[in-house]
């Protein structure tokens, strides 16, 4: 069975602007590279051979399509709603990030670039980029905030094992936003042979559109999988939101299904009433950061405010412009989830279903628990389980060790 989406065409937005959001606010030195990338992407998008090559890579290397798993024991804690996980954690390299990376790496190859650079927070995007560089025989440099190299040390080692150079970023707040700054600086100086493989649906045009197109396979698969399993569309689709790639990846196929509620969960850190959170849409204002107009945490003068989250991958004060737009038109709802709620959901999934999620994805799980309690047992909720928690074992171990004094966790 298939269910036709209504022709409202929210899925057709191609940038550079999504409503008032998006655009290209970048130094002139990088405009030629962005134009080159836009042109190459447009050609690739229209080329069946490109799509065939990417699909084949996904089939034989990524492990797509990813499965969906129903989690009834977990769902008992979520008002009895039916909860389905889209298992991006089972992808090669452990998260949804590989979808974007393989797409962009193929584009980079097409335009003759021999060096890939990337920013990374949790290290998942860095690992995926290092993986693609190894696969395609390219040089790879990954910028990672010094704070993140400490809390995601395992992923630093993974990148190095894959042959990449990891450069700890010691400027600014020493987290993901500063890693982006450093990657842009590298790109300005090395644009001739280098592709900046940006890891989320943020940045200047064409990144938000191109990255979305590479991750939307998640929702396209999941939409049909849910229909095949349940006979209908889900009531709600849920994802965590850092820059927004896994969220747009699973939302996009449902944008023109008006009965499907879309919920993004931002990192609430210690709570949005404290200054320690990363809830960009909930607490931010429109402005320009990292090359596009979107919504971000900033002070009265437009200085970016430091974000905080227990999850390195969500610890970003901005968000992609398509999400800012979806929030502004009311098509998607964005809600903060605290560190504490995310960690409880993390442990719950481990212990009820035998699946260790990434702490990023645990924010979506926590959101799904709340949502299930509101929607009740007739509801079906599709959750993007964006990554696996291997990288987080140390953080989670320490977290529960402290909370429970070593017992019970």
């Amino acid at each position: 069975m298939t269910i036709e989406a209504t022709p409202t065409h929210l899925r057709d937005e191609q940038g550079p602007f999504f409503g008032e959001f998006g655009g290209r606010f970048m130094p002139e030195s990088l405009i030629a590279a962005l134009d080159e990338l836009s042109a190459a992407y447009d050609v690739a998008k229209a080329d069946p051979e490109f799509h065939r090559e990417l699909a084949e890579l996904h089939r034989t290397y990524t492990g797509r399509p990813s499965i969906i798993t129903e989690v009834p024991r977990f769902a008992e804690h979520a008002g009895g709603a039916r909860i389905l996980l889209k298992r991006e954690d089972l992808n090669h390299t452990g998260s949804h990030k590989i979808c974007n990376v393989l797409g962009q790496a193929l584009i980079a190859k097409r335009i003759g670039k021999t060096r890939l650079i990337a920013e990374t927070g949790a290290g998942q995007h860095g690992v995926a980029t290092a993986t693609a560089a190894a696969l395609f025989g390219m040089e790879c440099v990954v910028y990672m905030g010094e704070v993140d190299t400490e809390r995601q040390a395992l992923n630093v080692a993974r990148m190095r094992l894959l042959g990449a150079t990891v450069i700890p970023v010691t400027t600014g707040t020493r987290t993901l936003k500063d890693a982006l700054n450093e990657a842009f600086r590298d790109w300005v100086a090395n644009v001739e042979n280098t592709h900046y493989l940006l890891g989320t649906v943020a940045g200047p045009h064409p990144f938000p559109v191109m990255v979305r197109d590479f991750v939307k396979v998640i929702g396209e698969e999941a939409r049909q999988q849910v229909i095949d399993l349940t006979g209908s569309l889900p009531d709600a689709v849920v994802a965590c939101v850092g820059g927004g790639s896994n969220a747009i990846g699973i939302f996009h196929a449902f944008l023109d299904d008006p009965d499907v509620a879309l919920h993004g969960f931002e990192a609430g850190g210690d709570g949005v009433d404290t200054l320690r959170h990363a809830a960009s849409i909930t607490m931010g204002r429109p402005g320009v950061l990292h090359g596009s107009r979107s919504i971000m945490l900033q002070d009265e003068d437009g200085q970016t405010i430091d974000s905080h989250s227990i999850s390195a991958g969500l610890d970003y004060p901005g968000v992609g412009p398509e999400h800012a737009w979806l929030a502004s038109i009311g098509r998607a709802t964005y809600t903060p989830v605290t560190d504490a709620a995310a960690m409880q959901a993390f442990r719950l999934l481990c212990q009820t279903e035998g699946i260790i999620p990434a702490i990023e994805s645990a924010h979506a799980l926590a959101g799904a628990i709340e949502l299930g309690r509101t929607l009740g047992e007739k509801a079906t909720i599709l959750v993007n389980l964006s990554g696996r928690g291997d990288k987080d074992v140390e953080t989670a171990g320490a977290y529960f060790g402290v909370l429970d004094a070593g017992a019970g966790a």
Partner: protein
Amino acid sequence: MTGASVAPSPVASAIEASRQSRAGALIGYLPVGFPTLDDSVDAAVALVENGVDVLELGIPYSDPVMDGPVIQKATQASLDGGFRLRDAFTAVERIRARVDAPVLLMTYWNPVVQYGVGRFADDLVSAGGAGLITPDLTVDSGAVWLAESDRTGLDRVFLAAPTSTDERLRLAVENSRGFVYTVSTMGTTGARAELGAAAETLVGRLRSVGSVSACVGIGVSTPEQIAEILGYADGAIVGSALVRALADDGVPGVARLAARLASGTAR
């Protein structure tokens, strides 16, 4: 030129005057609030007293993607010291009360957006500022600023890069007022031992699309480099070297360096 109908640009006039009396203009950059607001004002005044023709005051910003380590460190120190946007107008006003050189603000775009582009332009005019250099705002994304700078008569300096197409160079030339900021090399701000041939080639390309005022910046740090640049361009821009001198040796140090750099403008 789009801006031809408004009052003559004070920056263009200062550059023109320097070309009459010397080989061309020396343009000096310093960030506002480094090491303190008072010292940054004194340092800027000292630049002009020692031969700098046009001042470029940098507005510290949390995410300066075009800046190298020296300027990043100084602007971060200014932010840590409590820099507020209104301090930029205060600095312009106080500098203009003491010296005659035109003062441009160099700013990333978000602070202007948050302040309000129109309000920012009005307050800059009131403070006696000449205009803006916008490192992350290009002409094609700058409709609001084009309109506000036309309304207020402020100068607007756009950047030209070695990688820019001729079409984009023309856009920068036609829409800049004051000068076109010619990016000497692909990279962020910071002193370089050698300036390649890229800057001269780029100025030549700018001339061929009609530029009458092209100034070269990024990597410039010695009187010899300045003399070389003024052989083909209208002005030379020095940033990181001055910031480092200020950091290391205070206002007297930056004054001495300015005087030495100014020797590179002799004909």
